[in-house]
């Protein structure tokens, strides 16, 4: 794990009270220069400089392991520091080259870990190659339902490049490492994917890790590169989501007084902060989607889906939100099935948007109905509520970008329905609104039916 280089003689150096490297043996001088230091300048190795300063401040003999970064490797030096007047006398007794230390059976360990650290994103799969964890930018592209899905589905979703991901899947199935396979992403950028099996100390394989590098490559010509949205969805949205997520988590922790009681008004402020951040986070999501659906070449996957199943998932996801308002979500019975061809997560997204709106604009204690049906070549999902409804003259206007129909302060961005309709149309269907029998609004999502 660690290789120590024995030294026949200590490497010595003198550092002044102003941090200047007054004298150094050749090896230390080289290290100092490689760290960006100059002849006669301040010692450029932070760990050693701090030790020298400490020994001078305390006027004590110190003896410590100091970790330093050389250009090619990290090292642990054993250093003794003695104060002599205004000079710290340093003696390096040995050094060890450090590695990150998680053993794997093959490949250059150091390189693997360097790549892992350098990677923009990482995906971790279990031994059955089902997704268990995602980190970095790629996590933003994934949804909760993606965890547990097969590696082939995940890679296809991220890359949309079935041909080039096949060698990756072959290597993963064979539990072999692979390096720097170039694939394009759904955003028409290019990335490098490297992967290696995760190995336990007893040699058993515990899973598989893929590291994704985006920024290292120039992007290939992208017809949408000039549009401002590409920059937002691909680069800004992930950057914004992360701090917002932290703000929400921290504010909720404070608001729920998990760390101990605080003044009531502070707890309320914290909840306001969490709500505001949640709103901003939803807006970021909407803007990212907006950028995606407005690209001329935007396309969706053609999954075989069953609408009854999706409606029940939506009802489950929003059950708590509905219960807060004593609203009941009525879904189709389990035996009622309507097969369709559309992208699973996009349909889920549309229905989440429709049912969230229905809950938001319905009086407490009412019901939201989700129904499914087949009409000619289309599979239908109808979401109707018992709210005030939408005026017929607004049936088209409600699908316009940033249209709020005069409402404000309810947490909406005015983009949800616009995006939902664009998504529905991209999947070969449509989204319309009409008056429900109860007087509320009734949204109908049409999708191509799957012929069984």
């Amino acid at each position, binding site marked *: *794990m*660690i290789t*120590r280089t*024995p030294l026949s003689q200590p490497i010595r150096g003198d550092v002044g009270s102003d941090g200047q490297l007054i004298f150094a043996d050749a090896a230390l001088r080289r290290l100092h220069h490689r760290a960006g230091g100059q002849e006669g300048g301040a010692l450029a190795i932070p760990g050693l400089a701090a030790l020298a300063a*400490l020994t001078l401040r*305390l*006027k*004590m*003999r*110190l*003896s*410590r*392991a100091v970790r330093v970064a050389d250009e090619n490797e990290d090292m*642990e030096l*054993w250093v*003794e520091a003695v104060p002599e007047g205004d000079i710290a006398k340093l003696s390096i*007794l*040995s050094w*060890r080259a450090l590695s990150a*230390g*998680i*053993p794997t059976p093959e490949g250059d360990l150091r390189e693997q870990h360097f790549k892992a650290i350098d990677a923009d994103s990482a995906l971790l799969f279990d031994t059955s190659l089902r997704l268990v964890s995602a980190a970095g930018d790629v996590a933003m592209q994934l949804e909760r339902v993606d965890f547990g899905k097969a590696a082939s589905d995940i890679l296809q979703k991220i890359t949309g490049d079935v041909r080039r991901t096949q060698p990756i899947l072959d290597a993963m199935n064979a539990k072999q490492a692979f390096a720097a396979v170039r694939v394009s992403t759904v955003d028409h950028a290019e990335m490098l994917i490297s992967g290696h099996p*995760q190995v*336990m*100390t*007893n040699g058993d394989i*515990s*899973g598989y890790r893929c590291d994704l590098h985006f920024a290292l490559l120039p992007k290939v010509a992208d017809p949408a590169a000039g549009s401002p949205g590409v920059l937002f969805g691909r680069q800004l949205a992930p950057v914004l989501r992360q701090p917002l997520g932290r703000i929400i988590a921290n504010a909720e922790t404070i608001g729920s007084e998990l*760390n*101990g009681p605080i003044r009531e008004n502070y707890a309320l402020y914290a909840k306001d902060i969490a709500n505001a951040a949640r709103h901003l986070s939803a807006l970021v999501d909407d803007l990212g989607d907006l950028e995606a659906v407005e690209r001329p070449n935007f396309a969706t996957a053609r999954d075989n889906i069953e609408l009854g199943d999706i409606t029940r998932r939506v009802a489950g996801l929003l059950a708590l939100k509905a219960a807060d308002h004593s609203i009941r979500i009525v879904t189709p019975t389990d035996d009622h099935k309507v097969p369709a061809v559309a992208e699973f997560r996009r349909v889920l997204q549309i229905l989440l948007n429709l049912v969230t709106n229905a809950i938001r604009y319905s009086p407490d204690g009412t019901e939201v109905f989700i129904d499914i049906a087949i009409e000619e070549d289309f599979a239908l999902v109808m979401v109707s509520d018992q709210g005030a409804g939408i005026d017929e003259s607004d049936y088209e206007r409600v699908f316009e970008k940033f249209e709020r129909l005069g409402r404000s302060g309810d947490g909406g961005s005015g983009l949800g329905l616009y995006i939902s309709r664009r998504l529905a149309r991209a999947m070969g269907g449509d989204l319309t609104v009409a008056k429900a029998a109860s007087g509320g609004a009734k949204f109908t999502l049409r999708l191509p039916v799957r012929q069984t």
Partner: protein
Amino acid sequence: MLCADISMELPLDELPNKREELLAVGAVHARDVHALCNDVAAMVFPSAITPPTEATISAVTGKLVALVSDIESRLQISRADAAGGLPGTWQLLARSGFLREADLVDFMLARVAEDRLEAKIPASTPQLSAQLLAHADANIAEAAQSLLAADSLHRRTRGLSYQALRPELLHRLCWRVVAALEVGNGRRDEQVVENARALISDYDEGQTALTAAHKLVHFLDEEYLADLLDPEKAGLHIYVARLAQGLQIDHDHVLHLIDSHSSAPLGVMLRAVGCNAEQAMASIYLFKGFSLTPRDVALFERGFEVLEQDIAHAEVCRWGYARAQYLAFQQKI
């Protein structure tokens, strides 16, 4: 989920004794869940969940008293004004809040934990440091000698307890005692200041047990790696230094984690440094043998191999980060 699983095995509409069985199973699981919650909470809010016992507080106080007394003695301060066996500067230091500063108390708590853990290692066990006295590498032999000397009971009781302090703490404590003395006497004694300077210049961090153990871990080659993770062979200082070096967390933090009421933190640390299950269980039995519950053993058997090394390492890093933040925050206020 738990209730669902149980009810599938033991339908509620069966015989009444099945219901009792169900209740008993439920009660056991509830206790397990409660204990697990405590484990997690203890790592997140250690002082709130596991406040120090009276015995620990008393041990820390005893060590602090000895420390201040030893420094006073080294500074050649008369004990004439000491009251009730306490050092002369004790009251002033206590009133100033210095004796409650987080890093000093943390250091003392670690020493108390060290005493408790050392008592669990059989004294008859041959320790690595004694074998290394004859090592061909002078650095190793010298560090082994320093470790043995620092660790000797003789030295601990000869009024040199301050030599075990970290340099930053000794520096602060020494000058605080000098200041307290000035305030107490209403005048400055140059001899005391000279003695304080001498005490500080005599100090050598390399002679502390902690540093000597870390030096050994740094210098020893791979052939010793297995021994370093065996507390009975390596001895507590080297064992803890090896864990601290491998996990890149503070030595005293490792001591606190081993000394925690649960075996889970030690299990996670051992997984993070790449111990196999057998090695890990040996350590856990050694340090936690008396308090191990069937739940601990079951958790260990089920969880150790499943827990991935890098995930365990990341978890330990989070603990280290949280502790560093806690100490830094306490220091500021």
